[in-house]
């Protein structure tokens, strides 16, 4: 599977890369804007991402904005909801309202940092990504 990781913090980025590499090919961006660009680029090349992991606090475009942009792009291109990329927010913000906001914007899961690897893995199984 193809994975896109958007993460501005180096240590987290490194962790996510190491953790997710075993499941597929990972691309990395350091802010939300780059993530949206990468997503578009992949769609244009007809090899869209299966999984997108978005941090929330990022420069240029934050996680929410990136999430919304990606969902809008998908809508505009007529990609049905169940065929869209699975987007997981990965963030240290764990307040209920952050989670709700992300849910409303259409992420499929919200993982608090530090990430529970075991649960993350079982989530990937549930989402039938692995």
């Amino acid at each position: 599977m193809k994975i896109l990781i958007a993460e501005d913090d180096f240590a987290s980025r490194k962790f996510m890369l190491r953790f997710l590499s075993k499941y597929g090919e990972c691309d990395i961006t350091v802010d939300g804007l780059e993530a949206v660009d990468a997503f578009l680029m992949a769609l244009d090349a007809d090899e869209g991402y299966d999984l997108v992991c978005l941090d929330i606090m990022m420069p240029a475009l934050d996680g929410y904005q990136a999430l919304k942009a990606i969902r809008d792009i998908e809508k505009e291109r007529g990609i049905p909801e169940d065929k869209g990329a699975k987007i997981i927010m990965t963030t240290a913000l764990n307040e209920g309202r952050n989670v709700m906001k992300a849910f409303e914007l259409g992420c499929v899961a919200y993982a608090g940092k530090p990430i529970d690897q075991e649960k993350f893995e079982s989530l990937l199984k549930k989402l039938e990504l692995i």
Partner: protein
Amino acid sequence: MAEEYITEGMLDMFIFESEQLLEEIENLALNHKDDECFDDAAINEIFRAMHTIKGSSGIMMYTNITMVSHALEDVFYYIRESDNKKVPQNELVDHMLKVSDFIHEELDKIKNGEDADGDPEELITEVEIFLDGIKKNITETGNDLPPEKEYVPPKQYYIAPVASEDSKFYTIHITYDKSTEMCNIRAYNAVYSLKEVAEDLQYFPDDIITNEKSSDVILENGFKMGLQTKSEVDEIMELIGRGIGVENIEINQCSADQFLNFCTEVREEEQIVLNTTPALEPMPPKEEEPVLVTAGDIAKQVKKNAETKVIGKGKPSKKQETQSFISVNIKKMDELMELMGEIVIAEAVVLQNPDLAVPGLDLTNFHKAAAQLSKITTELQESIMTMRMMPLKNTFQKMNRIVYDVSRKLGKEIELEIIGEETEVDKNIIEHISDPLMHLIRNSVDHGIETPQDRKKNGKDPKGKIILEAKNEGGKVWIIVRDDGKGMSREAILEKARDNGLLEKPEKEYSDKEVFAFVTKPGFSTKKEVTEYSGRGVGMDVVVKNIQDIGGSLDIESEWGKGSTMILKIPLTLAIIDGITFSVGKTNFVIATNSVKEFIQVEKEQMIVEPEGDEYVMIRGECFPVIRLNEFYDIKGAKENAEDGIMVIIEHEGETVCALADQLIGEQEIVVKPIPNYIKKVRGISGCTQLGDGSISLIIDPGTLVG
């Protein structure tokens, strides 16, 4: 839910909500346990609650909770469709409580940062077998089974962050050899090497990369780091390594709070240091934020340390009360209470100011204003007090469950009657009485109430009865646990007391009350065999200690064959009491107004001194022991002759003692403050307070003084 209400963490919300629902279910189960069946409203309520828990636990990925709640939800789904009179109520209640217990247990694990790893299989099979019975009921009556409900997995998931409960906090202090060059870079090396293991890392000075001047600061003061990690000291030491020029590395483990304090303190300190070293050239603009510490990490830190307890938790569910509530952090309430205490003291300082004692000063207006001030502070204090008051309802309802569980295990039939559950007491006190009360109730169920056979033999109703009552009386709250069981045997207790060498006077001289009080001595149990619930002799002494800690007392009454009564008397509140101030020599004492019976001036003839030195005073034909506080506390310069001073007659739980005071000073509200730790515990003194003139006064604890 409107967005602004969700300020708590996702996980806290889930736990809070689930616990409330479980409580609702449990109450419903217990309220209907003796009915033939649940009514429609209850069934819908339980169904809805289970559905909610199933849904939210699904999102949170606690699979075992989801599965269990799904099973119970199914049961109620079919009950709703079937003739529910045929469902055995006993079994149903049992299953409900088991499910609720299971979920509770898992929630507790989650709260403690453990994995919710309870195995639900057994419970689910049990519930499913039960469900099959219900399904059979439906088909037997010729009806079709309602369509199977399919489990729809949630569309969105939330993964809670791994609990960093076991991560440790360290402060690290590295000093470098004075001749080391570029030690800011060396310091950064240390930071860099720790990044791998760090969950949070703060270092000072924090601009070591961009500001060369920081090198001097490090040479001067050393390099300080605060580290949150799961690693041990050795590992950290190894990671930092002994680089060139390192003079000393000091690693100290500390608590989370200390860690936060360290971070803020050192930062302030460093800022001062950095500011005083004038920068020769303008500091280059920071190109990058410190990489590792994202705002989120700090926010999380603070959050974890902040108390998340809310007062509203204990409030009855929203449905019953339409008033609107806000939940307030209990810490804030405590702060408010403390401030109130300070105001009371400040008021006394103003109103009793020695400057006012100038002769011939016209104080009419001052006194008017003072009266107004006093009135308002009293009202303010009362309203703060009532804000902290909570009904005993929740605590009492928990007892319902205990009676149910224990009586079923022991094969006894017991009815619990609850009276006065709306009685309100201070929130802090509620927390302290829950455990002792639970113990008393267990005792009653286990030891008090006999088995149905024995009860029949003795001509009693085979169903035992326990009454749990709360009421306000004389500025205190009485909580009474009364059972109609076999009561306590005076002889058995005396015998045991004799064996334990507790008797201090001839047996006949002991009043019933004194005899029963032996039960509260450590290691005392008349029960021959030990049961799961009580009888080990640990407990009553702990109960009494817990109650005494909050200024309460326990009275035991009992009649052999008829039952026992335990009376808990607890103060309404802990912080501010009405007190009477008096002096002995130069020392001031305060005593709670409601424990003073009267003041009396005695004549020399009324004093009786026994040959061994004990002193008594004869007042209106009654004889009371006298305590001379000046001798008791070794106070110099107090009045020696009883007729010069004044007798304060102190009554405590039926015991009376007279204390000799030099003079009375007055009555006022006093703010109880604990005696600082560095002063050892003094008999007869429970705390201290500040008087209007700023002097410190000791608060007399009548309980220990009389005893």
